């Protein structure tokens, strides 16, 4: 099993997003580095639009992830309601 990974800014804009990822991906492990948070998770990370909207209290389009993203590892799958990263092993 390999980890997928997403690295996000550690700032106000990304805080709700990070909280949503942590809730929806209970096996994930978060590492806090200066200025950023790296979240690793075995095989797959899914970010649901609805979960992020619940956290931040406003509507959110999945595209907005581009404003918070620093790096990622894995294959990307993006649609209107979710953003997923996975390996195809």
């Amino acid at each position: 099993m390999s980890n997928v990974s997403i690295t996000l800014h550690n700032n106000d804009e990304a805080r709700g997003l990070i909280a949503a990822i942590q809730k929806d991906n209970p096996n994930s492990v978060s590492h806090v580095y200066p200025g950023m948070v790296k979240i690793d998770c075995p095989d797959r990370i899914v970010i649901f639009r609805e979960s992020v909207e619940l956290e931040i209290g406003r509507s959110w389009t999945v595209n907005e992830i581009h404003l918070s993203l620093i790096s990622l590892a894995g294959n990307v799958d993006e649609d209107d309601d979710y953003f997923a990263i996975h390996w195809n092993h």
Partner: protein
Amino acid sequence: MRMMIILPFIGIIERETTMNVQKKISLKDRYRILTRGLDWETSYQPMGKVFPDVGFEGIKIRNWDDFNDPFRLTMDAYWRFQAEKERKLYAVLDSFSQNNGQTAITDGRYVNTLKLFLTGISPDEYMAHRGFAHVGRQIPNAGLRISAQMQALDELRHAQTQIHTIGQYNKHFSGLHSFRRMHDRVWYLSVPKSFFDDAVTAGPFEYMVAIGFSFEYVLTNLLFVPFMSGAAYNGDMATVTFGFSAQSDEARHMTLGLEAIKFILEQHEDNVPIVQHWIDKWFWRGYRVLTLVAMMMDFMLPRRIMSWKDAWDIYFNDAGGALFGDLARYGITLPKYVDVPAKEVNRLSTEAWSIFYQYTHAAAFHTWLPTDQEMDWLSASYGPDWDRLYRPRFLHWRQMEKEGHRYYNNALPQLCQVCQIPMAFTEPDDPTRVAFRDTVYRGERYHFCSDGCKNIFDHEPEKYVQAWLPVHQIFQGNCGGASLDQVLDWYGIEKGVDNMDYAGSPDERTWKEWEAMRGRVAG
């Protein structure tokens, strides 16, 4: 059509409307509309003449429409997000400059990492822009072309924002005034320069594998994340901000690189060995360039965020291992010589910093010997071998400095024909012996620092015999003259200001004045 309108406190009214009510188009549909049916078969000219570079590399494509950008980013969304990133970045830069943020860094030595970045990396961002513009022009598929166009614009943005950000430091520190000229001329900057020159002179598919995949996906985290986390840790708010702003584009670039390589591999099995060789080549080329990053992390940051070894573990061993597991189903294996970086990991940065210490008189940034505390950190990071092999060298040089005989190497070093780094690396299995490899091609002998670089040369000797090697060029009289002073003038290095040790430099004087000012306020 008739439409029901719900009005608060009034109720539901029904009325005729001419409005064309449409459901919002989904992300997938918007992307499909943008990227399908935009192309046509040319009739005035044969397609081969319109896209002349797409055939000669031997890559076979059965169906161009198989390529999809998983981000499905459309142009309107692209412009909106990029504009938002720029607004945020320039607000920080403005505030940084207004509030004299340069006085809040950990130590004046820190600025030398920015000198290395501006002269070594920023001009390559511009070259990446040109490379992706070329790919965008040459690839006959609208999806790939749009992604390449976006990346070409991103790379231009990176070059510009880096120049703007570091411009604030140029007002106060030396060595930042002629970054473009230095990039083209200074000996150690030929390492990153030749890397990108090599990439942009390849065909569009090799460029995608070289930069899009091998550099962006496999290695870019090792460049940006340690640099920017290092900046955050050393109080450089402006650099963190441009770095992470650039890096937010990199996630898209990495994804483009991975999708492009999967696309090429899925199109035809004959593509697999070609791509494998490119992965082997560009992994090794990129790794050698990252030597400069290793040195920056372990020797140049006053406060260290992580060692080169930690970064290699996190960003190559963990992430890279999973990636190559993913590509195994295409028959792609880990790059050739992938075991060598692991063997060199404990000494790479030390060997590199030792070169710069010896040639400080010809460098556009300042050098210094590690303090006792810094050597303790290095030995804790790299184990007892570091103490046995390298601490004595630094202590010896320290003693020479004390006795007034600071060591300078006045001989010009032999350079590797491929990576262009001075031949100071040691054998993978024996750190006490310098590694030499060579090949005779058409009656001339060419020298290499490693099996990785020799392998690259042997595969394309016609390309690498043309390398512009700084030391050869000096000896041939093409670099301003025969004396060090003449060469430094030609480089654009101001003697006694930009070069030599940090101790006694104008940079150190500036920093000490600022510290004294803070002391007076505090007292």
